[in-house]
């Protein structure tokens, strides 16, 4: 073996050793680059999917959170390749996580509920809703809480966990809403005439919708009154006004035709009435 051959062999050995040493660094770099590409791709995907569901500021926070989250996970995965033991970090992180988790259980619950509410969108800003027995307009849907303005004009903050776990009634989700009344008339009144009067009023009122077809009928022969049911639909935006107007018109128009809402009454017969009358005579 001459000097050149020895030199070549030595060089090859050094290259193999260096390659073994450099390889983990290259792999870590590849993981990092791949994670950045993945994070960017995921951000673009999230932006496109959630653009209509989140407002700009909140979407920005979510995108940044997901972007850096993916990169941090990649770094933690890459660190053992560089000979850095992350088990201690993970243990410390785990313990810290448990402590923080217990301490901020409700905060995290509200945060996660808020994200789900934003994604599921059972309510929108401006909707009229009933949540946890509070009725009003949705003023804001935050990450931690939802703000309602009730019909008295009061500001009400409801934690998102409560919003998410409670029954939500969205009053304005549909474009039409039904109006229903029960109207009692006397047994001596003509029920068919009353039905016609109410039907004419329904036909004349612009906001009582032609379809779904309104319905008026005798529903019950009550103790004191013949009970008529009135079912009609109105645009959700006009429901309250229409309901108010129509009921009063029904009352006044029935009275104009001498059809009255009866008072509760009971006819009492006395057992000795006949004999008393005989005595008087």
């Amino acid at each position: 073996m001459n000097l050149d051959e020895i030199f070549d062999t030595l060089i090859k050995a050094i290259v193999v050793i260096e390659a073994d040493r450099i390889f983990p660094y290259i792999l870590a770099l590849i993981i990092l680059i791949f994670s950045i590409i993945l994070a960017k791709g995921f951000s673009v995907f999230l932006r496109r999917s959630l653009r209509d569901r989140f407002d700009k500021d909140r979407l920005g926070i979510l995108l940044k959170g997901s972007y850096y989250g993916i990169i941090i996970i990649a770094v933690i995965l890459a660190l053992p390749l560089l000979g850095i033991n992350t088990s201690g970090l993970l243990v410390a992180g785990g313990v810290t996580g448990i402590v923080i988790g217990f301490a901020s259980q409700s905060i995290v619950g509200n945060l996660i509920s808020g994200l789900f509410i934003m994604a599921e969108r059972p309510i929108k800003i401006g909707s009229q809703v009933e949540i946890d027995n509070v009725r009003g307009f949705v003023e804001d849907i935050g990450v931690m809480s939802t703000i309602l303005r009730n019909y008295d004009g009061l500001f009400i903050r409801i934690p998102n966990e409560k919003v998410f776990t409670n029954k939500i009634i969205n009053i304005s989700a549909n474009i039409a809403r039904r109006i229903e009344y029960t109207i009692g008339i006397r047994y001596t009144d003509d029920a068919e005439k009353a039905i016609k009067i109410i039907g004419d009023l329904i036909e004349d009122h612009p906001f009582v919708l032609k379809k779904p077809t309104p319905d008026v009928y005798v529903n019950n022969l009550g103790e004191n009154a013949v009970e008529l049911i009135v079912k009609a639909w109105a645009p959700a935006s006009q429901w309250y006004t229409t309901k108010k107007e129509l009921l009063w018109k029904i009352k006044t128009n029935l009275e104009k035709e001498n059809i009255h809402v009866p008072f509760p009454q009971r006819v009492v017969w006395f057992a000795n009435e006949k004999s008393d009358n005989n005595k008087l005579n």
Partner: protein
Amino acid sequence: MYGYYKFPLNPLRISKDGIHLQIKKDGNNLHYERTILNDSIEKILLTKDCGIIINPIEAHKIRNQVTPYLLIEYEKSVFVEPKGTNNVYITFPVDIGVFISGHKNYDLLDIFTLAKQKYTLYGDPRNGVICKYHKSPVLTSIPTDLNPLINGVIKLKLINTTDAWMEITKTVFDSHEMKVYFNENLVSMKANMKIINEKIAETEFVNSGIKRGMKKSLEIFEPAKITVSQKKYTMEEGI
């Protein structure tokens, strides 16, 4: 009644079919007053010279801005033969717009109607739309007994693109796209209804009157006023 009333408007008095409209001097300005049945409105016009244009306009959101859609239900349903194209005439409720004009510009001053106001739901409460409702006969010629202050005529071309007989009971229009034409005796529009299948149809307006010499009304939804992007309305909840 329809037309352009030039300066000087003091005084301007119009009374027709229960519509009372007047403009009179109020100090240095003008005072607009309109009464129709139990509904009246007054406005102050801070100008000394302006013109007034009274036009029939597209079915607009007169009361409380409920909807831009108009549903016309036919008194009798119509059957269209496979691949057939037919013209029919239906009526529509006229809305009347009073525009103030001057200084090379105009704007809507007042809007009212003599036609009966009624609304309906097209589709279901979840996915449907609230529409202004009108019931119309289906005619094969232009009706001659209509009051142009109350009802107009739509020449509707029914185009059946399917291989089956199609029964049509109603048509829904988007009033953003309405093109209203008028003369002294008639208010009209021209529209097409393309039947895609037994549930779906497309409606669109044609920018033309149904008689020669008819004048085009001013549009509220002109591109300069409100941007309108959609040209057709797709009826997806049944025909």
